[in-house]
């Protein structure tokens, strides 16, 4: 693995320099998006869920779609930092800090959705957590939503620790070179007296590898558990054993696509290209290609099982997807997630960053559509009646989606300015 010369200086510049007008414009836009989302949240809580498009049949809408999407996005971070670390894939070095940050931000964004999705969020905030009380009233441990709470909380805490652990040596390096007094003091505090002694390094490496091991298991488990929200129900189109691997594969694909999109933008904004090659994009795209093939298998299996079950209701779901108003979305999803990634068989495309950005951006849209198709177009037909009950998102629904992207990007932009986005100690000569 090539090391990146001058990475330290560049990062110091990013943090110390005055913000450019481009940065300020971008963060204004993302803040505005966040505000739109906040307005949507206000409407939702104030007027009740009547401002959403959901109804008696499709009673889960884009909130759950977005929840699954953002949890999926989170997966790439852990994959890159933990699994690839365990596998000694050194090309991950320029990626993993940003990817881990992304994990944390997308878990935060994802966790907001189930809360605002409930009819009485003011209760759900604490009733969903098991706590001892004099009534002996516990959460229902057989509900997948409760499993979600545990899974996501564990995932969030572990991702935060992992990311922080990786930051410690860098903070110690940077704390003397930062102009801002506040930041410097902050770095000093969080560096925990890191001096870089060999004894410290030994403990550090042991801890890091242990956490990486736990995180590896979580990559598989978290999205598997999220998939049980669907798989354990009686809903046609959800009630399927393929869901856990299906969801994990989809999550990794969308996560990698998101990481590469965001990093390509960062790379061009801060001239990182001068010090780093494109090898890691090449590798990421290979992962995307592989997961896309697995995902295609899952789509096929879904269709096959619906046919093989012989159940008219199961088949009805597939017919509904193909022939209803959602058919456009369904075929768009197939194109974006199955056909488009096949371009990555070509090495030149894998390394052509503008094209990679475009493809991965579209894949993200495809993956959002996939969750929409899974959630909405399975609920829209009951076992009794034939005609699908269509669901159309309202303005409030859309504002929440916009807000989620706004919040995510705002957090990332702030992160870029106050923390080193590339691990210094791993990339230093």
């Amino acid at each position: 693995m090539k090391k990146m010369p001058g990475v330290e200086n560049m990062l110091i510049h990013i943090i110390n320099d005055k913000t450019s007008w481009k940065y300020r414009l971008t963060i204004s836009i993302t803040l505005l998006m966040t505000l739109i989302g906040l307005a949507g949240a206000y409407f939702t809580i104030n007027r009740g869920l009547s401002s959403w498009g959901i109804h008696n049949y499709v009673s889960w809408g884009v909130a759950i779609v977005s929840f699954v999407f953002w949890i999926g996005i989170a997966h790439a971070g852990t994959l890159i930092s933990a699994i690839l670390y365990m596998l000694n894939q050194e090309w991950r070095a320029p990626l993993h800090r940003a990817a881990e940050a992304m994990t944390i931000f997308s878990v935060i964004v994802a966790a907001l959705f189930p809360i605002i999705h409930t009819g009485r969020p003011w209760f759900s905030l604490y009733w969903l957590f098991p706590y001892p009380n004099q009534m002996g009233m516990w959460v229902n441990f057989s509900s997948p939503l409760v499993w979600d709470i545990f899974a996501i909380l564990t995932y969030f805490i572990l991702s935060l620790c992992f990311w922080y652990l990786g930051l410690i040596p860098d903070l110690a390096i940077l704390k003397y070179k930062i102009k801002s007094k506040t930041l410097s003091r902050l770095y000093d505090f969080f560096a925990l007296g890191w001096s870089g002694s060999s004894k410290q390094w030994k403990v550090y490496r042991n801890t890091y590898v242990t956490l990486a091991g736990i995180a590896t298991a979580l990559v598989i488990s978290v999205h598997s558990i999220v998939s049980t929200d669907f798989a354990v129900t009686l809903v046609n189109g959800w009630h399927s054993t393929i869901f856990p691997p299906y969801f994990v594969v989809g999550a990794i694909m969308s996560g990698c696509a998101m990481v590469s999109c965001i990093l390509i933008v960062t790379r061009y904004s801060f001239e990182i290209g001068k010090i780093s090659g494109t090898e890691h994009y090449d590798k990421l795209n290979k992962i995307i290609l592989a997961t896309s093939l697995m995902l295609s298998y899952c789509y096929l299996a879904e269709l096959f099982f619906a046919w093989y079950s012989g159940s008219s209701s199961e088949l009805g779901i597939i017919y509904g997807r193909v022939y209803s108003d959602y058919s456009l979305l369904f075929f768009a999803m197939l194109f974006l997630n199955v056909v488009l990634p096949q371009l990555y068989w070509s090495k030149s495309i894998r390394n052509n960053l503008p094209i990679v950005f475009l493809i991965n951006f579209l894949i993200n849209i495809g993956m959002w559509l996939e969750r929409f198709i899974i959630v909405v177009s399975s609920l829209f037909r009951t076992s009794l009646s034939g005609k699908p009950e269509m669901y159309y998102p309202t303005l409030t629904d859309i504002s929440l989606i916009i807000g989620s992207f706004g919040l995510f990007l705002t957090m990332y932009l702030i992160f870029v300015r106050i923390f080193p986005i590339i691990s210094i100690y791993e990339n230093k000569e």
Partner: protein
Amino acid sequence: MRRRDFIQGLGAAMALNAAACRRPEQRAVPLVNPVEYVIPGVSNYYSTLFTLQNIAFPILVETRDEKPVKIEANLLPGRKGAVSDKYMQSALYSLYDPDRFQNASIENKKTGKEEAIDKIIKSLASSSGISAVITDISCSPSSLEMKKQISIANPKIMFFEMNPLDRNYYLQEANKAVLGLDGELLPDLSAADLIITLDSDIFGTDPLAAYYANSWFQSQNFEENRLIAIEAGLSPTGIVADKRFAIHPDKFERLLNDINNLLEQKAVISQNNELYNEISDYFGKNKSIVILGGKQLSIRAHTLIIKINKLLGAFTDGGAYSTKSILPGSEGRKESEKELRDLLTGNKIENLLFLDINPFYFAESTLKNLISKVPINRRFAINFYKDETAENCSVFIPLSHSLESWRDAVSPDGYYVIGQPVINPLNKNSVSKEEFMFLICKNLNISAFQDLNTFYDYLRKSCLGDAPDRMSWENALRRGYFEGKRISATEIKFNQLNSDEKIIDIAPKEELSLIITPSLNIFDGRFANCAWLQELPHPVSKQCWGNSLAMNNRTAVKQGLKEGDIAKIESNGNSLELSVLIIDEIANDVICCESGYGRSAGGNIAKGTGGNINLLFDTSSDTILQVFKIYPTGKTYKIARTQTDFSLTNLKLEKDIFYQPAEIQKKKSSDSNFEYTGNRWAMAIDLKKCTACGACQIACQSENNIPSVGKDEIIRGRNMLWLNIERYTTVIGKERKHVNLPLLCQHCEKAPCENVCPVAATTHSPEGINEMTYNRCIGARFCMVNCPYKIRRFNFKNHAKDIHTPFENILNPDVTVRMQGIAEKCTFCIQRINEARKNARKSGLAIDDTKLQTACQQSCPTGAILFGNINNKESAISKKLSCTQYFKLLEELNTQPSISYIGLNRNADTERAAK
């Protein structure tokens, strides 16, 4: 800590303590002189009366703290189960309707009630010309007597009756000509083995529907009986019929003629072998057959029907008309309306008083013009709402609600029923119809009224004579009716029947026809301000909040229309725009539309739903219009419907409903690991008996405080009814079959909703009920997602916010009002079970499940719903299920529902098919 800091902290703590002090004591004073019989939290039941035109329904009103909270049918001797319908159930809504609270007004200026009454009575009594009082048809003996007395005392005050549902009185005319009787004969459906209805919606639009349904579906050998419906549209009667023929109305007379010829063994012109075979199967085999014709049929058709009925033996012993009783209040209508028209045309009427009738809404333009010729300061209205008629009159007095005043009536069964008020008039400015007539009588110095003060005195005196017997009066009030029937058989002669009328043999034209029927939900429009009824899904089209032009696809394509289009319809220079709705079972070239919608006044809910099809009538027109134009406008409309697809895609379900063999198969016992040692509540629903009348749905809404969500929410699929009646249809052999499937929470033994709720807000009770803990619910809607029946409901809005005084009184105090953001569903009326449990505990006995009924069961006129304890082998439901084949909904999902459905297949059908 320094001394200074300590003192500071102490001071702050004391200030906080002071702020947390209790409010000053305010002593409450207990109710030391409580009203006798009224115990807080315990219901009292009063028997009283509900009338729908001239049909009387004896009812029981449940009151809590002296406020009515629920209406039930009063059980009558000789009847099994309740005779109840949705209108009766919804009377509570109009009682507490915030829109009814208007002041009496003279020329739109607010006045006192007395002043307005004075003005009307003086004008009526002192006019030089004729003063006409127009009322709806009624069956009140006391009103009839008062009208008579008034006409004797002052012949210039004339009373007229109008029937918004029957404009031509052809049936009456035919009865008069042929049978020599004045009025309508009342068939006894329980005596019939085969009923043939000819465009007669006996289980739908007929005001007698509840009585008919009760007689037919609860008759002794209902399982062997058959119902054949011949109709142009698709009515609830057609849906429950064993066989249905969709025929263009032009063909009706010819068909009757053929049946007549068949019975007289003459040549038959057209071919409808199926129908003729059915009739031949029963004819001459000692079976009782009756043919019932709709009121809108022509005089000749009615004459033929009477003739056929005579041939079928319906008038002889054992036949449906053998009792020869006349429907109370059906006498003398034709003359009345004709005379009124003549007088109006001759400009002989000086004053017009509309007493509980709204002709400015329902009358055709000619009649409206005639009425309008009477100057506005000479028109007076006493109506329940400030409706179209009230707006067109100079004096308006609000009418009291029927639960607020004394009334009387003769029920179709012949019982004399007294209606006692169950609450003081909520609107102090209101007057009742009878009270007003009484005031006229007093004013005219009629001797019989001189020593009486109120209508109550008169009613009591006329019931008991001069020697008042307190006990018999009180017993009658307690029971709700006087013992002994007051209807006797009338004389019937068969005139004309032998004179062989020439029946034209020309082929029917089968022109495009528009059939106008009263609404199945809001009747002739009088219930238009009731949100419960507006939101009740239409029994056939499942449309809520409005009417449509219903036709089959072929007809629609011919006119260039499709579902959801807005069509413009023109007739007699009047036009109307309405949405188009496709119902494929309607006969070709027939368009069906319901009247009652499109109100321009009469309450906030009534206004602006649907279109007023009454505008298209002209004087001579029947309810079947053929002179009109219909064309697309290019606009579209989103119809609020709770069900749009009626086909059954689930093959297993289709088999269960339509084909299941009637022999009892052994059921797999539940593999639950919970043993029910005490009660185990369950329900059985007989699909054969459901006419989708909606009484259960309104009863459920009333009992369980279910909000009405409004048209927009229905369009968005947010129906709130806990009990939804879905209609499914499929083709078996060559025949199209229908089923009304009442769908409510199935209370599954292995409930999918229970194990996915994250906060355990929905749980299973040790008595087998799937319970909902509202205050634990966070609204994650996982239960709704996982319910395969999709009968869980969600409070998308805070509907309680829309309750305006005094509507909050309608709420059942035993049932929680749900807030925004929580899920709800049928509870098997858990409050009633708990009430029964409480009473049982007091008496130290087990719960008597013969007396325990859910609201839907109690209001079902056909006895389709059975609820009870299946652990008690003696309970009605256990007995029923032990001898009947039943199925569970979506059994293949292994949810093990507590509700058993009894399919449509009957032994009799299987035998017929084998033949």
